């Protein structure tokens, strides 16, 4: 198995040949029994002791029939059967055929049958009967060995599929960077291997990123060797898996035992090694190395599944890398955009302020009005840039609020005042109905942003000469701000998307109502960041009502209220 195992042969293992092991202490009798069995299409081995019999059975992990010649006192049938049955790791359950003797003692016969002896031949001199029985039992042994192997393969494949599930779960749940390292453990545990290591590819070779050892294993030396160690790229299964790009399996026995890793693994009672290369676009990322105590070849299905797991991990790593790069690009982009957009805005707004303050002399009324138009639009542009940067902040998870006690009445009144000019211009009536609601703990600028946005939205979507109602009321422990218009409304089919970023209703597009679809999504983020919520109730052609619910500050919060930043 000391090579790439993607071609583990299945066929030769379903051979129709069994091995007949004849045990006895009389060489002449052994020769005779052997010659009786010679015409059978099976291998016949004659051995003179229990130990040789065990060796003969173990040397073949396929079907075996054991024939015990118990006619002479030198070989005690019970002893042989006990030894075979009791042998741990005896790969098969040999079918036993006792020749003579045992049936004389009923107790011994009962124990023999109890241990699994299947037949007793009383007349060992009957060549035909012996051959017929051995032939039948050999068929039975071959069939049961084949079934057992199929079972093992099915089991192993089942485990591999379960491992695939576990790995997928681990990858989808893992947000941290070392999730790939943990996959080695996930895989080892799911497959029933005792050691799982992720060797990360470095310039010169590999570095042990993370290693997992089954608690039942006593492998102190191996653990010590793994901790933070490095491997050069040529040695062992890890190196070969990385350079070939395919899974490599090996019996530790067959590896270089000068290698301290191999020696320590053998000392820990491990026997199989498997190395699974993880590569992204043929760039090796690392190798998952698994070790187990059980020595058993891997079948092709299992290897195919392991290969699939490896590519799953690689895809994940790839996606992760792309995500990181995108994230970095996005951050860089927003930093650049904010600088490049805000610098000219600084000059526009700054010089305008100086002009309007009369720093360069007085203007006539018309000039002053023009400057105010420029100023209003520059501020609008700034708000847009600010909104985009707000979105960027939320995206990068760096939204921060300057919390203090906020009087929502004042916020609402101010927002209504600010919206009056635009409303009056289109004959829209702004009607306020507020009741004292106490204080809300929040960022006054951000809360003002929500109310400003909802009112200006309501005005935008109202018909000329319409009416917008702004209500501030208390509802239990919450303050509720409602902004209701009698305007265009939102079609039912589009209502679920109104709070999504860059979502604009078809009506807004049709009527060419300006906006880029950020305001409501920003309002939602702000409301939720304050522990509140936002909702819409709308009927197309009748109007929309937006309500923002914010938790009212409890009196016990007062002590800390004005103590925050800014």
């Amino acid at each position, binding site marked *: 198995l000391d090579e790439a195992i993607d071609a583990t042969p299945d066929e030769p293992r379903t051979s129709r040949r069994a091995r007949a092991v004849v045990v006895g202490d009389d060489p002449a009798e052994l020769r005779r029994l052997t010659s009786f069995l010679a015409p059978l299409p099976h291998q016949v081995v004659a051995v003179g002791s229990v130990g040789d019999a065990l060796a003969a059975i173990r040397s073949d992990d396929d079907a075996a029939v054991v024939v015990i010649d118990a006619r002479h006192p030198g070989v005690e049938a019970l002893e042989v059967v006990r030894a075979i049955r009791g042998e741990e790791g005896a790969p098969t359950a040999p079918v036993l055929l006792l020749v003579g003797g045992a049936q004389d003692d009923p107790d011994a016969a009962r124990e023999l049958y109890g241990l699994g002896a299947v037949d007793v031949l009383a007349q060992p001199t009957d060549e035909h009967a012996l051959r017929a029985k051995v032939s039948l039992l050999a068929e039975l042994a071959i069939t049961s060995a084949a079934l057992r192997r199929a079972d093992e393969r099915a089991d192993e494949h089942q485990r591999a599929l379960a491992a695939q599930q576990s790995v997928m779960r681990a990858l989808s749940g893992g947000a941290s960077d070392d999730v790939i390292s943990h996959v080695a453990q996930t895989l080892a545990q799911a497959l029933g291997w005792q050691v799982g290591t992720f060797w990360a590819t470095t310039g010169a070779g590999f570095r042990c990123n993370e290693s997992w050892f089954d608690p039942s294993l006593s492998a102190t030396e191996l653990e010590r060797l793994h901790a933070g160690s490095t491997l050069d790229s040529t040695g062992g299964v890890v190196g070969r898996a990385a350079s070939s790009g395919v899974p490599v399996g090996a019996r530790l026995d067959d590896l270089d035992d000068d290698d301290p890793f191999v020696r320590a693994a053998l000392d820990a009672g491990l026997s199989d090694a498997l190395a699974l290369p993880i590569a992204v676009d043929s760039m090796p990322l690392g190798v998952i190395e698994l070790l187990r105590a059980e020595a058993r070849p891997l079948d092709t299905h299992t290897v195919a599944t392991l290969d699939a797991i490896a590519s799953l991990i690689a895809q994940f790593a790839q996606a992760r890398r792309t995500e990181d790069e995108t994230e970095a690009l996005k951050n860089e982009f927003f*930093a650049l955009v*904010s*600088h490049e957009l*805000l*610098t*000219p*805005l*600084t*000059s*526009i*707004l*700054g*010089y305008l*302020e*100086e002009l309007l*303050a009369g*720093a360069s002399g007085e203007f006539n009324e018309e000039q002053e009005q023009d400057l105010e138009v420029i100023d209003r639009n520059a501020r609008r542009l*700034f708000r847009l840039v*600010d909104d985009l*940067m707000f979105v960027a*902040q939320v995206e*990068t998870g*760096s939204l*921060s609020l300057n919390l203090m006690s906020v009087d929502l009445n004042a916020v609402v009144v101010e927002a209504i005042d600010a919206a009056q000019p635009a409303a009056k211009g289109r004959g829209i009536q702004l009607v306020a109905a507020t009741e004292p609601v106490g204080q809300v703990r929040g960022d006054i600028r951000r809360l003002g942003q929500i109310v400003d946005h909802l009112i200006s939205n309501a005005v935008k979507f109202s018909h000329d000469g319409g009416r917008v109602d702004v209500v501030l009321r208390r509802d239990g422990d919450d303050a509720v701000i409602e902004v209701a218009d009698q305007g265009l409304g939102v079609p039912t089919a589009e209502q679920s998307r109104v709070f999504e970023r860059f979502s604009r209703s078809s009506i807004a597009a049709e009527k060419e109502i300006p906006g880029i679809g950020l305001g409501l999504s920003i309002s939602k983020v702000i409301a939720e960041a304050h522990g509140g919520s936002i909702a819409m109730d709308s009927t197309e052609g009748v109007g929309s009502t937006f309500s923002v619910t914010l938790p009212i500050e409890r009196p016990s919060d007062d002590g800390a209220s004005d103590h925050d930043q800014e």
Partner: protein
Amino acid sequence: MDQDGKTVLVADDDDDVLALVVRRLERDGYTVLTARDGAEALSVAQQHVPDLAVLDVMMPQLTGYEVTEHLRKDPATERIPVILLTARVQEADVSRGFAAGADDYIKKPFSPQELRSRVQAVLGRR
């Protein structure tokens, strides 16, 4: 407005923003020194030891943060108050500015009136 001829260093790589700040401060009676990148700002500060430095964050050569850090390391300049002008809005940037040793920061776009009162406040504090 008599500012006792206090000297303010203003550094920004954008000429228009620089001129805006310079004009505002000169009208208030300050003596204004200018720099167009971080390295120049540092050398002017070391040479003239102004009463205040107003530094843009995103400048070529050295950023406003780096200039502030250098100023704080040198006993000759460590006491110069620094106001950072930043177009970046993230909390991390603000804390980075304070960590570097800045006394205040102003977000772009800023009102010249606001800048003026921040300058007065920082100078008054010292």
